């Protein structure tokens, strides 16, 4: 089995809420993937945000990022983003140190709870940045995840 496909499947399966949202027709993956192509190819956080959010100007907001402090496997780092903000239409998750920082972006239908869980790929230790668009404004939060060489513990 193609490992990327397996990783993708793992990601979608784990992202329970998003899976449900897709099933209910709240999200349309084809649209998401097509429109975000440029964003995924962008080489900086700023360019990626301009592409998928229309702007890179954001304020810190009430967003919780759940992630391991140290990644067990850089190829599949579990990340959960949630927020109590209302009117959230877009969520983007970026690994600032990746060559292409945008790891995933989501469009949320009206009334959807701002909660996504996914697995991302990280090449190196990085700040994980979550950016939400709510009522046209961008909000962000970040959290460090370390990718270490491993060994030598205890």
């Amino acid at each position, binding site marked *: 089995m193609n490992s990327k496909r397996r990783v993708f499947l*793992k990601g979608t*399966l*784990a992202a329970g809420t998003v899976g449900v949202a897709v099933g209910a027709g709240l999200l349309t993956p084809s649209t998401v993937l097509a429109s975000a192509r440029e964003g995924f190819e962008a080489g900086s956080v700023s360019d990626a945000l301009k592409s998928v959010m229309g702007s890179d100007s954001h304020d810190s907001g009430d967003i919780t990022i*759940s992630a*391991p*402090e*140290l*990644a*067990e*496997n850089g190829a599949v780092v*579990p990340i959960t983003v949630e927020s109590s903000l209302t009117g959230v239409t877009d969520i983007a998750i970026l690994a600032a140190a990746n060559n292409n920082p945008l790891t995933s972006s989501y469009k949320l239908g009206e009334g959807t709870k701002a909660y996504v869980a996914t697995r991302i790929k990280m090449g190196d*230790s990085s700040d994980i940045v979550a950016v939400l668009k709510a009522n046209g404004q961008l909000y962000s939060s970040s959290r*460090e995840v*370390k990718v*270490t*060489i*491993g*060994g*030598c*513990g*205890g």
Partner: protein
Amino acid sequence: MNLSRREFLQVLAAAGAAGFSLPASARLGAAGKNPSDPYELPARGNVSILHFTDCHGQLLPVYFREPHINLGVAEMKGRPPHLVGKALLERYGIDHPGLLSHAYTYLDYVKLAEHYGRVGGFAHLATLVKKVRDQRPGALLLDGGDTWGGGSGTGLWTHAQDMVDAQLKLGVDIMTGHWEFTFGADRVREIVENDFAGHIEFLAQNVVDVDWGDRIFKPYTIREMNGVNVAVIGQSFPYTPIANPRHMVAEWSFGIRHGEMQDTVNNARADGAEVVILLSHNGMDVDIKLAQVVDGIDAIMGGHTHDAVPAPLEIKGPEGGTCLVTNGGSNGKFLGVLDLDFRDGRIRDYQYRLLPVFANLIEPDPDMARYIEQVRDQEVTYDGQTFNMKDALSEELAVSEDLLYRRGNFNGTFDQLICDALMEQVDAQIAFSPGFRWGTTVLPGMPITFEHVMDQTGLTYPAVTRNEMSGAMIKEILEDVADNLYNKDPFYQQGGDMVRVGGLQYSIDPTRSIGERIGDMELNGKPIAPNESYVVAGWASVQEQPAGNTGRKIWDVVADYLRDHETVSISELNEPKLRGVEGNPGVSSV
């Protein structure tokens, strides 16, 4: 000179006549006078927890030297456990020289080790557990993990069965784990579901299925003790799949998971728990931060970092409650005893002792002693060879002219020996040896046995590797490990010591950030060039197929080196040049 039990009792009698007595309270600072009888400890209160941790498969008494470098940075500077030698004794008001100063520090180590003798051993621990338990009906015995290894030949060759049966005999009630997982997920499951069933609960709130997030183990248990409902939560070592081979627990994910920890505490309280104890393998700095961010834990019985801390730290929680944070040392050297006086809905008072287990002062439990003798004196087949374990372990390989030890932030003398062996045996310019905190001590003049070598190297991924690495890569490795040790946020620390090095010399400033700590890298007086290639030997790779695998195992490399040399001396200890730590009480020169 060796002090026999009878002589010791005579000394005690004299001390008693001179007016020594047990301190009235175990509050900070009062724990440290050398007691008239270290094992006479009347119970206080109605809830008692006995705790040992990180015994690393040491069934027999051993020597174990505490570190002279255990640096804390940022808020951890000078805070327990980051105190060594005199600074530690001053903090706890412990006299030197004495039984307790020898137990908790490296000061005058050889002289006092010869005087007081070996520490630990399950037969001696068993006697002590019985004695302490007799005074505490209903007390629970908690095992913090790193019981099955690493650092034990018999553990490796019996797939931990030696320790599993010893735990059952000792009467362990609850355990959590770390090195246990290096025997593989299947073996852990097998023991938990069969040997332990109905006897020992293996708890971990922070081990989940890697895909679905379901818990693998029960997160907590509630036991009634003298009418008080006591919850014990388990926390396994959060970075097991990073510090140790991930492929051994490929389907399990770990992590600190402090949010889930709060949920677990809340669930236990909702379940009727009046006292909440965390049995933790986080390491002490992580435990302190956890106590600051999670509400409702009354005490943490901690391990992993092998810190012998004489008294608990009282840590304020997010809602203003107090959590007692302890750490119980290693290698079977200590038994922690926590008594809580729980009345009218809250803890009124507590008493804590970290009792050193001196083998000369405690009669061995005959049943356990017989078991240990029998389990060691048996034939096993390992790696295609069949042999008697006791015979193999007792082989005298060489004589040590110097004290050999490992524990400390940087190279110990035994690490130096391992690095020398690696460089000579596999023809490398540089050697790396992992900064494990286990491994026993050998006194000068003692024969180095194969058992000592297994104490230092026994694990389930022993491949010796030989690779070419660029100077830049070597720097990256040192920086990476240093950041695991000295990250200013304890949640990013893995709890081992710095990687040990042979050949290479460097300087380190623990107070700086990743990429900026390591400097002055040299080999034979010449600066290490980033683009130049160097031959590096190592062992204990966490890769499933280690790059540059020589096909040899680390204990064979060290044993062959010792057989070749007959006597060894460590003329110069390759410690890095330390910067930025002037006045830090976590370092002392010897």
